[in-house]
């Protein structure tokens, strides 16, 4: 049989769409002039960047002067949290976040926690939602910043961002959201949702790696993370990554254009995948919510009695690329902090599989996965002493 090549790890990273790459190419070789310079060649790149910034702003209903380009999602997250905390410590030292943030937020908060700040980590329920009253109760006089992710990268939970923004606004606390998994995938409107700062990364929506952006509402003061030249209105130094910016803008424009139609398809395929797996594999459970409040392309299932890495390796042998826990920590052996946060016991959290679908995913691929995964689970369970114990116990 021909080796399959099924990519179901879009939440980790995507390829660059050909239309996007095509727009980028001239900026590598021809229009490469430093946009801060004053010769005509530079004026071309300057204008192209400006236009791209406009597209990015439009996609989230912001003003282009509120968009600052970064070297990726992690940089945007680090800058938002450290930059805001350091520039506003005279107002207070308390920051609120959640237990299910990406490490780019969590590790920054841990760092700040060791450096004079007090961090509250809001718990989540078994579907991954925070409780809005927990947030209300956590806010105190010294609270300066709330950072709650828009959509979770592992279990796909979409928070009630608008409500969170409202609570922050009522309490005059700045609200940052890590929207790396949301932007380009679900509608994001910083005005309607009361968002003050927002992080995004191009490689999650078919744009290039190594470029992202931080939206910063006018009037908010941040300390620079990368000091130096006067780029990005003096806020983020470094010669502009012109092709990267052009690519991010183009990819985002396409993503917003196709979003509605795309998501109809994704939701249908995702539901088929989730329902099919739960039905075919006993002792399996869905992590994260069903329906509207789940990212359209995300499926995350736990299979009891087996371990995630083995599942991934067997899937790979069948030509399926997937992930277990969050992508940038596989290679590490700890079970996902997100799965622990929604209440899974350690030994069960180990056996989870994230399948994240994308624009090219077909129904035929879903059928293949539905055929292959149950076999793999069974094989691994046959090797597992835990399954053994369980099966014997049941008798």
């Amino acid at each position, binding site marked *: 049989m021909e080796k399959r090549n099924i990519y179901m790890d879009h939440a980790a990273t995507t390829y660059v769409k050909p239309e996007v790459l095509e727009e980028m190419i001239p900026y590598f070789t021809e229009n490469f002039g430093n946009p801060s310079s004053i010769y005509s060649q530079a004026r071309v790149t300057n204008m192209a960047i400006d236009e791209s910034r406009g597209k990015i702003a439009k996609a989230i209903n912001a003003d282009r002067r509120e968009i600052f380009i970064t070297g990726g999602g992690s940089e945007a997250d680090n800058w938002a949290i450290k930059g805001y905390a350091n520039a506003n410590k005279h107002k207070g030292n308390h920051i609120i976040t959640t237990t299910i943030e990406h490490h780019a937020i969590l590790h920054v908060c841990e760092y700040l926690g060791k450096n004079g700040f007090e961090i509250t980590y809001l718990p989540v329920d078994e579907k991954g939602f925070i409780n809005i009253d927990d947030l209300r109760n956590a806010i105190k006089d010294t609270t300066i910043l709330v950072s709650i992710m828009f959509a979770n990268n592992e279990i796909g939970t979409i928070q009630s961002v608008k409500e969170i923004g409202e609570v922050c606004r009522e309490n005059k606390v700045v609200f940052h959201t890590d929207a790396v998994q949301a932007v380009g995938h679900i509608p994001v409107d910083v005005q309607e949702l009361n968002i003050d700062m927002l992080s995004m990364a191009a490689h999650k929506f078919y744009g290039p790696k190594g470029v992202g952006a931080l939206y910063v509402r006018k009037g908010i003061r941040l300390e620079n993370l990368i000091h130096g030249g006067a780029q990005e209105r003096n806020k983020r130094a470094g010669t502009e990554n012109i092709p990267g910016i052009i690519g991010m803008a183009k990819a985002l424009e396409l993503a917003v254009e196709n979003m509605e139609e795309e998501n109809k398809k994704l939701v249908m395929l995702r539901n088929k995948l989730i329902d099919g797996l739960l039905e075919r594999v006993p002792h399996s459970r869905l992590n994260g919510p069903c329906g509207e409040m789940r990212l359209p392309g995300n499926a995350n299932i736990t299979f009891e009695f087996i371990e995630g890495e083995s599942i991934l*390796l067997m899937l790979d*042998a069948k030509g399926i690329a997937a992930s277990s826990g969050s992508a940038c920590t596989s290679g*590490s*052996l700890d*079970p996902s902090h997100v799965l622990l946060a929604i209440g899974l016991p*350690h*030994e069960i959290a180990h056996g989870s599989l994230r399948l994240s679908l994308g624009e090219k995913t077909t129904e035929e691929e879903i059928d293949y996965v539905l055929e292959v995964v149950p076999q793999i689970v069974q094989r691994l369970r046959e*090797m597992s*002493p*835990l399954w053994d114990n369980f099966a014997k116990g049941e008798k």
Partner: protein
Amino acid sequence: MLYSEKVMDHFTNPRNVGEIADANGIGEVGNAKCGDIMRIYLKIQDNIVKDAKFKTFGCGSAIASSSMATELIIGKSVEDAWELSNKAVAEALDGLPPVKMHCSVLAEEAIHKAINDYREKAGLELWDFKETDHDELHDQVHGDE
């Protein structure tokens, strides 16, 4: 993280999976919380390991280590089987990534436990070995560099 072809071979076609109904030595190490449990079954006759089988809950390298370790001890004397080190298992697999070395430690220890189980049942003196404190190992593997 890259696994050798040998590891992948032993992972995808593991040898000696299963249990031995009349095993006279059984050893189990690890814990589910860590994501790794290994259980080894031995059939020992005339001081020779006649058969060995395993059941493992764990990553690719844990399964490959179990497979390789059981293969290496079958046919050996109990003394020789006892001498099988985790390094020998890893080498036989053409190496393991550094963060995965502890998976081969599991194999060494599971065999030690199984052999001592056999010796206990046979009324023989137990041999000395130090079981790694799994929590300590965990910190060692996952702690700061």
